[in-house]
C-alpha cells in the first residue's frame, strides 16, 4: 500500500483533472470526487486505476485517449495520486 499523498498534492491533482489537462479529463470520464460525468471512457470510480495505470494512460495514451504532452511531471504525478486516492485504488 502506498503512503497517502499529502493534501497539497491531492489539491493539485484535482486542479489538473478539472482545469489544467486539455481536453479536460471530465469530458470523457466520470469521477465522483471531481463531480464529472463524462461518458466516453471508463468510469474511474469503478475502474479504480492505480497511480501506475493513470500515469501510463496520461503519458502514453491508451485507446482513443491521446498522450497529454503539455503537463509537467509534477502535474502528472499529482493527477495520478489524486485519481488513485479518491477512487480507493491506493
Amino acid at each position: 500500500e502506498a503512503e497517502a499523498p499529502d493534501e497539497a498534492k491531492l489539491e493539485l491533482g484535482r486542479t489538473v483533472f478539472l482545469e489544467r489537462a486539455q481536453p479536460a479529463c471530465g469530458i470523457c470520464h466520470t469521477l465522483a470526487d471531481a463531480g464529472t460525468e463524462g461518458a466516453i471512457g471508463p468510469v474511474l470510480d469503478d475502474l479504480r486505476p492505480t497511480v501506475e495505470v493513470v500515469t501510463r494512460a496520461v503519458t502514453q495514451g491508451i485507446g482513443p485517449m491521446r498522450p497529454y504532452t503539455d503537463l509537467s511531471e509534477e502535474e502528472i504525478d499529482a493527477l495520478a495520486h489524486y485519481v488513485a486516492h479518491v477512487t480507493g485504488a491506493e
Partner: protein
Amino acid sequence: MEKIDIRRRNLLAGSAGAVVLLASSRLMAQEARPLPEYVAYKDADGLIVHSNNTIETLRSAQGVQPVTPDRLLYVRNNVTPPPASILEDRDAWEITFEGVGEPRTLTLGELKTMGVETMAMVLQCSGNGRAYFEHSPGGTPWQTGAAGCVMWTGVPLRTVVERLGGAVSGVRYVTGTGGEEIPEGIERLDVLVERSVPIEALDSIMLAWDMNGEPISLAHGGPLRMIVPGYTGVNNIKYINRLALTEDETDALIQATRYRIHPVGTEGSPEYPSVWEMAVKSWVTGPSESASAGMNQITGLAFGGMNAVESVEVSVDGGETWEAAEFIGPDLGRYAWRAFVLSKELEPGTYTIVSRATDSEGNQQPEETEPNEAGYNHNGWRRPGLEVSVA
C-alpha cells in the same frame, strides 16, 4: 489493486493444486466491479467486468455452446454507447450510403424490405488473448472471453449497393461510421468509431438488425450493425449511420494509428497492417471444476476466422503429445466456431491441457504468437492452456 497477471495466477493456482480456471475466477470475484446499467441484464456470474466498456466471458461459461446468448456475450465499446432512446423506434434509424451510383439515406424499415439473410459468426475482440503476450501490452488484459459465436440477421450489403446503382469506380474500401455521440472539447477523429475494410469484403458484409433472433441490444450495436464475417470485432461497426464505399481508408485514429500490427516499442501508423482478418484459434473451456481421476470430458471451442475450422487436437502434457478431438453440435458454417471434446481417462496428477486447431486451408495455430505492441490477434496455443490437478 494489482494489475491482473493471469500468468502468475495460473502458476499459483496450479501449485496450490486447484483447477486454474476456478481459482482465477474466484480471485476475479473478490475484486468484481458492478455490471454497468446498460448491460445490467447480463449474467454477472459468467462475466469478468474489466471496466464499464470492457467485459469478458468466463471460459467455463462458454463451455460447449454453439451460440453465445446475449447475457453471456462479451462487451467491448471503444466509446460508451449512445443513449438507449435510439432503440425506441428502430425502423426509423437512418443510414446514409455514399460511393454508390445513387447515394441516399435509407431507414432501417426500408432496408428490411430489400432482403434478409441469417449467418453465424464468431465475434471476437481484436485484443482477445492480450493477457498472454509476455510484453504486457497496454489495454484490457483479455484472456479467452472476448469472443462469442452469434447469429446475425440482416440484409446483405451487396443487395443494398445493387439497389443504389452499384459501386462508383475506383473505390477500394467499405467505410462504416458509428453513431456514438462525441462531446464538444475533444477531437472528433480521436474518438470517432469509423473503420475501413477492403472492398473485397463487400460480398460478405451484412447490415444486421437481429442478433440470436432478437433485435440487437444497445451493448451490441442495435438498432443496426455492420457485420464483416471473419474480421475482428472493431470492424463490425455498431449504431452504423453512414456506409461509404471509399477510395481511401478513414483518417479516424481508430483506423490510422490504432488497431495496427506493429513491432513492440513502436507507434502505430498507416504503414503497418490493419487488424482485419482473424486467424485459426481454439482454447479449452473445461474441465472447469476440480477434476477427479477417471473419465474426463475435455471441452473447448475452435474456429478458423476467415476459413472453416477443419480439425482440432488436444494435449494433456503441454504439447508433447496430441490426440484428435471430436467436434460436437451443429456445423453453423464457415464463420462460426465449433465445440470439441476429447474423452480421456486421467490418473491423479497435474496436467497442462492445451488445444491446437487447423483450418480448411491447412493453417494451424502457432505455439506462440509473434508479439505486437498493442497485443492484437493472439492465437498461440500454449499460453491459454489450463493447468489441472486431478485427485
